[in-house]
């Protein structure tokens, strides 16, 4: 049994301690915005925030995050108002297939918290998510737009 705080809500889930957080979020709690892409922390589609830090949930055992504040894509908006990153994503029509974008948006939201006005070099260092559609040009523009709007 694990006790998880996700998007401000406490969930008691009956899972083995080594179950990856990704699958607990998707299958036990039933929130599917966080995606499975690789299972080995390579692609970043499963990125969530743990105590505000962008973390690849596919490789994070649930036992390691008990008692911490977990935020998923479903919890990024504040009281129904899209997060500035989500807003920039909509304004600049960033997603193509969209599958990687939950993770991309979560990674960017964490970056902007740490560096409100990131340079291109900051973006290159911090954003390592894979996007096979190749939305990177729009992603970069939207990061700068979100930073400018904040």
């Amino acid at each position, binding site marked *: 049994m694990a006790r998880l705080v996700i998007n401000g809500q406490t969930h008691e889930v009956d899972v*083995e301690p080594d*179950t*990856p957080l990704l*699958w607990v979020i998707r*299958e*036990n709690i*039933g*929130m*599917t*915005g*966080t*995606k*499975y*892409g*690789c*299972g*080995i922390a*390579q*692609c970043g*589609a499963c990125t969530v925030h743990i105590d505000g830090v962008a973390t690849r949930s596919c490789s994070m055992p649930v036992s390691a995050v008990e008692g911490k504040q977990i935020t*998923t*894509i*479903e919890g*990024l*908006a504040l009281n129904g108002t*899209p997060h500035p990153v*989500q807003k920039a*994503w*909509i304004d600049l*029509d*960033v*997603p*193509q*297939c*969209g*599958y*990687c*974008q*939950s993770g991309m*948006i979560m990674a960017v939201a964490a970056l902007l918290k740490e560096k409100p006005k990131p340079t291109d070099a900051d*973006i*290159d*260092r911090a*954003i*390592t*998510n*894979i*996007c*096979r*559609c*190749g*939305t*990177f*040009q*729009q*992603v*970069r523009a939207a990061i700068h737009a979100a930073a400018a709007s904040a």
Partner: protein
Amino acid sequence: MSDRLTINRRAFIISSAAVGGGLAFSLDLPFDPTVARAADGAPELTNWVVIRPDDTVVIRIARSEMGQGSLTGLAQLVAEELECDWSKVVTEYPTPGQNLARKRAWGDFGTGGSRGIRESQDYVRKAGAAARVMLIQAAAEAWNVPASECTAANSVITHAQSGRNTTYGKVAEAAAKIEPPKDVTLKDPKDWKLIGKGVKRLDTTDKTNGKMVYGVDVKLPGMLNAAIKDCPVFGGKVKSFDAAKIADMKGVKKVVQVGDSAVAVIADTWWHAKTALDALPIVWDEGPNAKVTSASIAQWLKEGLDADTVFVGNQNGDVKAGLAKAAKTVTADYAYPYQNHATMEPMNATALYTADKCQVWCGTQNGEAAYAAALEASGLPAEKVDVYKHICGGGFGRRGRTDYVTQAVLVAKQMPGTPVKLLWSREEDMHHGSYHPITQCRLRAGLDDKGNLETLHIRISGQSILTALVPSRLINGMDPVTFQGLSPKGEAAFGYSVPNLLIDHAMRNPHVPPGFWRGVNVNHNAIYVESFMDELAKETGTDALEFRRKLLAEHPKHLAVLNAVAERVGWDKPAPNGVFRGLAHFMGYGSYTAAAAEVSVDGKKVKIHRIVAATDPGYAVNPAQIERQIAGSFVYGLSALFYGEITIKDGRAEQDNFDTYNSMRISEMPKVESIVMPSGGFWGGVGEPTIAVAAPAVLNAIAAATGTRYRTFPLKNHGLTIA
């Protein structure tokens, strides 16, 4: 109208609304029984257009959305002729079962070959125009005025003389009873207001907040989850497996064989299923290909470069005589590897099977093919099967295959009455791709004493996709798709005029399954041709642009895109210090494309500073989305050039995941400047054509920078990385 009167009413009553994806029809009274209706009762005007009383316009989309944006583009095409309020447009997918029941009212569902827009544009525009005519007529009849005196714009119908107006929602019910016109006149392209405009996509918001339901996200009451392992050696079979070993593992419900080559574990959660599958002892009958390696395949293909038995795809003049009399001959051999699609969403499908029904929920590039697979695997009659399409988390050609649909149904059949979601692990997805085919190429040129290209022989040796997947499209054994971009005419025509030309194919089909991979054969064909053109230009001491211009004189559209990128990149002016340029052009999928690349090379690190890419797709429905497709092509194409390779050892794919099958990250992404230059008069594709020029433009720039011509790929095998 007659079409709608003869349809089988029973077929409409489909309770598929449980999970997004499909639209549900119902013909229950109290509505007029001659009008086809959407599930909410709103009347259908044409097969493609439903209008609700609140003026919402529902546009049906038959082709699949996988990121390429054609869902939005197709809606624009309908809305342009419908003259509706774009802000009130929503879309929905008809199901393949409904399509069959209505005699393919929505035509082809196939979404590959960059044909979503270009092969539907005519009939979907007509459907919009017909609905507009019906709406106007309904208003005119209500007002007792001639329809010719009424106009429609922005979902409002106006009769100027009497100052009356009404909205589409108000007259839709009456309009739906009117016989659709047989012939409608489509707008002149110069009058388009919505086509040609870079409006925003219709499917963005849910992709930013986690709400979009991909196939992998489907949830059904009582659903179980399955993980699967197919024989890692392609063509091998299951010999035995020891289900008892994992029977007690947490969550495991059942261990089942799937077909003759795979085993699946069904469990409460996918994580439990996968964990148990990893622990399941399976003995494989690896079959006759268990010793095949990349080296053995390469050797076989190499022999094809000299083979006498070939298929001829393009020929003029006399190559043999031309080479014999040439002042100089130049020869080069190239090779291109297997590559996996690696869509971000691994293959998956959810199936529910009972004795009298089989339903499948999945992302697919071809709903009708998925339906056919479900039909065959279920063994049920056609009216008892349906497929509910979801937005695909990437396709790139992979989701045109239906292997995962067949598997899901075969699994569900062993759990009747229980929905089962089958999801491939990334490793399974990497091991069971439908790979970019493997080829080698020998190019031999004969130059005269002035350096003119008089003779060219291009010999391709390697795999045929059609032989593996669509043998009915072979022409006397020849695979015409092999010659994409090298054909004498048509949608993928060779642009260079060479007096003596021979392009032929020594077909060699290894056991590794090939598939249509974004761009398909233009990827390697463009690398071969456009790299070699630069080699010849260098050999003759001619500028790479001038060398091409002379040979492209008879193909002005090919030339126009090349000239456009050359002008934009400033080809006639020196590049910035330390920066070197490369060019490429090609034609595929009915569109003309070209690119110029600017790179600098530091040791083995290649910095791609800038890409200028041009495309002439004839008509550009949504230029903003075309620009995104172009930019994305460079990510997919350059990932392939630098990193993409599936190698074969012991008959199986050696790569497992993104750690061994790398993909470009944002730090490696060059700045891409797009030139969308539709010249009108034809409809070309968008999703794939530009990928052809991504790799050769960069390769030519690398050769200019380093003096080294790389002829085997990916470039990581030469130690090159993207800085």
